[in-house]
């Protein structure tokens, strides 16, 4: 029930990395590792330049290759929201999921299991926002139920131009970048 997704406004994002820091403290992400990160995508020749700034993380794809290739079922979809989660106790650390992901979203946690953004499931399963959404000082990151036509995310996708990361990989990502 429900399909959680994110809509991120690249026109407002300044790439300050607040989302990355909040994720770190909220989820005790180990030093040296990023569940989220910032990309500055620049095209052109000085001074005629265009820059898109993106806050990236796991896209919680609808057809996630990481879930398909996991040999133990550790990578799975949650019942609430279709969030891609990893059960630490079922993960054997084979890293097939890491190779399968076109977005470089996963990594191996120092404790041995695969890890990544989990849409702050401990918060979102209770109806709250992920930490990055609530901290963003420019209010660029929106989160909600894509299946609900009245949700903020659905409304934004109806009114604004957007793109997703590497659509041709066929993963059906659930993070949409407004341009």
């Amino acid at each position, binding site marked *: 029930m429900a399909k959680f997704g994110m809509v991120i406004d690249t026109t407002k994002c300044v790439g300050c990395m607040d989302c990355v820091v909040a994720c770190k403290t909220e989820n005790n992400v180990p030093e040296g590792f990023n569940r989220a990160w910032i990309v500055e995508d*620049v095209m052109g020749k000085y001074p005629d330049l265009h820059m898109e700034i993106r806050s*990236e993380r796991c896209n919680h794809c609808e057809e996630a290759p990481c879930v398909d290739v996991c040999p*133990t079922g550790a990578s799975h979809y949650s019942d609430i929201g279709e969030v891609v989660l990893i059960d630490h106790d079922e993960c054997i650390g084979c890293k*097939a999921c890491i190779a*399968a992901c*076109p977005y470089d979203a996963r990594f191996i946690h120092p404790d041995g299991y695969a890890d990544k953004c989990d849409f702050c499931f401990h918060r979102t399963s209770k109806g709250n926002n992920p930490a990055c959404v609530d901290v963003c000082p420019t209010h660029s990151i929106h989160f909600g139920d894509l299946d609900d036509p009245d949700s903020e995310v659905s409304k934004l996708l109806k009114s604004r131009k957007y793109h997703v990361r*590497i659509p*041709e990989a066929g993963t059906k990502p659930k993070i949409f970048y407004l341009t």
Partner: protein
Amino acid sequence: MHELSITRHNELIDPTLHIWSWQIPVYLFIGGLIAGMMIISGYFLLKGRAREAKCTCFQLPILSIIILSLGMLALFLDLEHKFYFWRLYTTFQVTSPMSWGAWILLLVYPALILNLLLRVPVFILNRIPQLGKISEKMNAHPSTIKGIATLNITLGLMLGAYTGILLSTLTGRPLWNSSVLGFLFLASGLSSAAAFVHMIAKTAHERDILTKADNGFLTLELVIVAFFFIGLLTSSASHKAAADLLLTGPFAAVFWVFVIGIGMVIPLFIQSLAIKNKIKHTVVAPIMVLVGGILLRFVFVYAGQYSHWLIHAGLFK
């Protein structure tokens, strides 16, 4: 000009993926080798030609068990969450070729043991004489032998192909997005197994048969490699760039010299001459095949990790 700046710096992921090092190519090679061994020993048993290929049929099983175990050890060493490995065997994930593989490998051992029991090696017989009686009973029934042979061939085909299929399901690596990988690794495994027997065969006859078989497998491999590149070079920009990694890029030297040259073309040529009795059989050609076989796995595993959907977007500078 396109500039991409990324703040992410995750171990094993950045700047390019390097999650798998020697353990995986070694296992892939061993898996292929064992698969090839199971298929060719199964074949000769099935066709009732065991006497023509005694080494193939009766020495390979024990060697397979030993070598496969080394491969499994390599695989185990690669795991980051080792004490949870048993989780592979509490479920079957139908969309995960790695799950298929876990179960295939589990079944491969009994198949090899059954094959082994048809002619128990002396050093085992000395310790467990009862096996001799079991062996006799099994050999008494041709249908048993045929059953064991079929089992080995089937599991060998599965073992040989699944690793290639596994890589091809890893969406994130354009170099591996090819349906021929399963066939390529299977053909390579068969070729490695045939080369191996070529090296250790005790009779000239067995050596000849296996050399001819190897030539067939090498030719097949070259054809599959061609199909592989045709496929990638007519796909997307990411796939073309991935193919170029091997053809003209950073992996080109190793690929052309070791995988294609030393691993396929030169041994094919040498072995063809040897079959026509233009030159003597030596271990040179089979060793080349084996070296080429393992380097094929290394190149694919390393280049595959390097390949990326954004490889054409100036990501790697």
